[in-house]
């Protein structure tokens, strides 16, 4: 094929526009916790898949942390072989229904799609989601044949994205894998952090169920570090350990009044609502504050999840308080757009410095300062600078602090020989995630600090190969 032919093909393909995905109306969806996007129909999916020009050297794949054969599965969708497409994705990604929903495709596969140079990229994420949902609703999730058992046992600590991915990979190599999870349900941030309206929990349950069908053993309510140490795991006969415990500890701002009632970390607010289903109180026993004036501090995806949860819990005014501007917000554009559509009020260049409470110790007001943007800082974003004398107050009765997370110290504290850096994250020797402790690998947020689901999955994938080589050499 000559360049001209390829260009012609591109031109031809572009007669089909990128297919939109229907969504719940913003006015309706703020009154429920159902998923916002409704997914493609088979016809729309095939139409979208036909836009792919099947590049010989596909850029999209290089943008995928888990190396999905994207043109391969998209071709199968175009041909109407949806189950075949699902099998193709699952060769390298055991959580497609999750990734199709929460991956930042605009920064990964879709960013490198050649069509995006002139038109809109192929909607790879929407197609991945469609395929996974189709397979699940068709009730035809297949368990592939597994190789003969190797006799090697691997302990995975943490049932989040990294842990689930590595467990799936290792079990498919014939190893016996046990995941230890501290919470009562597997899924990690997928189950406690990301809200139902963005990632229905039934989907996470189905993906976890698939892993169990593959033979992964999941032990919940197991606090590794307290109930048993890494040394105990080796003593029990595990040949290798993978730590995918996340960066679970919330960061507060250490400003006066931050411990007033009504002030939550995003972790707590989302855990109550998502994991404990407090939005269904009293059907479920865990309560949550249903504030009228809710301020969420921060500009990331977790802040968007929190503020949209607040609206669904009945907030009259739901604010995002962010010290820079919309341009610097780390949240995905799609999430910001959804939040805007739903009526979230953005207060940019604003930073809280103190909370004021009532006689019962409940937060009533937030004192803020106005900011302006100065010189770029080490992150390359322009540094927010305080405008002197600009203090003002906002009436609030619920506040969610969503300014990041840090490493939980329990496992490093109880594991001799496991080196951490000055922020408490586990030090790894190479990109496979091998730690300073023999036989122990780590990956995901506990190594990188807060990042994305797919990067944690990518870390799990890389560690799986290294652990396989290691245990087979024993």
């Amino acid at each position, binding site marked *: 094929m000559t360049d001209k032919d390829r260009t012609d093909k591109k031109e031809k393909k572009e007669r089909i526009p990128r297919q939109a995905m229907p969504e719940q109306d913003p006015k309706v969806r703020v009154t429920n916790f159902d998923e916002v996007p409704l997914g493609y129909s088979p016809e729309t999916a095939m139409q979208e898949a036909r836009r792919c020009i099947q590049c010989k050297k596909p850029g999209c794949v290089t943008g995928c942390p888990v190396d999905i054969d994207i043109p391969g599965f998209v071709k199968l969708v175009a041909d109407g072989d949806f189950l075949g497409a699902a099998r193709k994705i699952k060769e390298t990604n055991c959580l497609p229904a999750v990734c199709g929903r929460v991956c930042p495709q605009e920064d990964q596969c879709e960013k490198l799609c050649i069509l995006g140079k002139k038109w809109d990229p192929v909607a790879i994420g929407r197609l991945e989601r469609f395929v996974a949902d189709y397979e699940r609703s068709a009730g035809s999730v297949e368990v592939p044949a597994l190789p003969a058992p190797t006799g090697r046992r691997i302990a995975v600590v943490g049932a989040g994205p990294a842990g689930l991915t590595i467990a799936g990979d290792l079990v498919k190599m014939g190893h016996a894998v046990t995941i230890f999870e*501290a*919470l*009562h349900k597997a899924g990690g941030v997928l189950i*406690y952090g990301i809200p139902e309206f963005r990632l229905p929990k039934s989907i996470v349950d189905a993906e976890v169920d698939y892993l169990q069908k593959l033979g992964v053993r999941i032990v*919940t*309510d*197991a*606090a590794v570090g*307290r*109930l*048993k140490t890494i040394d105990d795991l080796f003593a029990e006969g595990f040949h290798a350990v993978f730590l995918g415990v996340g960066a*679970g*500890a*919330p960061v*507060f701002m*250490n400003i006066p009044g*931050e*411990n*007033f*009632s*009504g002030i*939550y*970390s995003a*972790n*707590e607010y989302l*855990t*109550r609502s998502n994991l*404990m*289903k407090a939005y269904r*109180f*009293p*059907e*479920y*026993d*865990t*309560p949550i*504050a249903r504030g009228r004036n809710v301020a969420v501090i921060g500009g990331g995806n977790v802040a968007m999840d929190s503020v949209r949860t607040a609206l669904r819990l009945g907030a009259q005014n739901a604010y995002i308080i962010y010290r820079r501007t919309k341009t610097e917000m780390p949240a995905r554009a799609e999430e910001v757009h959804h939040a805007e559509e739903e009526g979230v009020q953005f207060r940019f260049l604003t930073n809280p410095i103190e909370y004021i409470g009532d006689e*019962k*110790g*409940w937060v009533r007001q937030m004192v803020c300062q106005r900011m302006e943007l100065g010189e770029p800082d080490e992150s390359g974003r322009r540094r927010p600078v305080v405008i002197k004398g600009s203090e003002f107050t906002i009436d609030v009765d619920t506040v969610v602090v969503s300014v990041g997370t840090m490493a*939980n*110290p*329990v496992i490093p504290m109880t594991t001799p020989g496991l080196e951490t850096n000055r922020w408490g994250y586990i030090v790894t020797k190479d990109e496979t995630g091998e730690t300073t402790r023999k036989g122990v690998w780590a990956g995901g947020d506990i190594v990188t600090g807060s990042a994305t689901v797919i990067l944690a999955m990518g870390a799990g994938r890389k560690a799986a190969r290294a652990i396989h080589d290691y245990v087979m050499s024993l």
Partner: protein
Amino acid sequence: MHRITEKVVLSENIVKTVFEAPEIARKRRAGQFVILMIDDRGERIPLTIVDSDPVQGTLTIIYQVVGKTTYELSQLEPGDAIRHVLGPLGHPTEIEGIGTAVCVGGGVGIGVVYPIAKALKEKGTRVISIIGARTKKMLILEEESRSVSDELHVTTDDGSYGYHGFVSDVLRDLIATGTKIDRVFAIGPVPMMRVVANVTRPHGIKTIVSLNPIMVDGTGMCGACRVNVGGRTKFTCVDGPEFDGHEVDFGLLTSRLQMYAEQEQKARELCRCGNHDR
């Protein structure tokens, strides 16, 4: 699933439950707690482990029936099961090298201070226990406390049994009469712990309190249990549950414990406990 092997109503509203949790029972030390969930719709609540039996593989908890979850827990009989138990959580009590300790327990807090007294006694510490309740029929663990103490004082607020007054009054007397005390452990209702800390502060007697704020995960992930100790925010689940009583902001603890008072009231009204006296 954690099968219940024993349930005893110790007094009006205070119940003891023993259940299977073999791994935790082997690992647990005095001062640590568990988070439990009765069923998959339940709340996660923290409860101090009162005793453990590594041979039988069981844990003992003692709790006051105050809300829906503790009511439902109190209704579970031997053979029933608790769905989820996570632990052992928190730092164990520091029990090394203490000459004389006074263990002060108020109400259901007697159940929490008892294992500490027991552990201290095993380390050779001279243990003086002061246990108190509102009234005689609400007093628990008198015999158990006596068996691990060199000296036991019992108080009731209404004078129906033992010394007529508060546990803090007895402690004040002990100090006034020159009893040499190296450390005080005080566990009970927040006002009691606050008063005990105020009694010992002028004498510089180190006073450890065990705090019971609202928790969710219990592993340092959410910060629901944050307390102010010495002007700094601490997470009770991973930094505690025991802190220096002279440094704890009890006012903050009290107000944060009230955070869900309305919802708790609603849950109580809706739950099966309509005819329950409280």
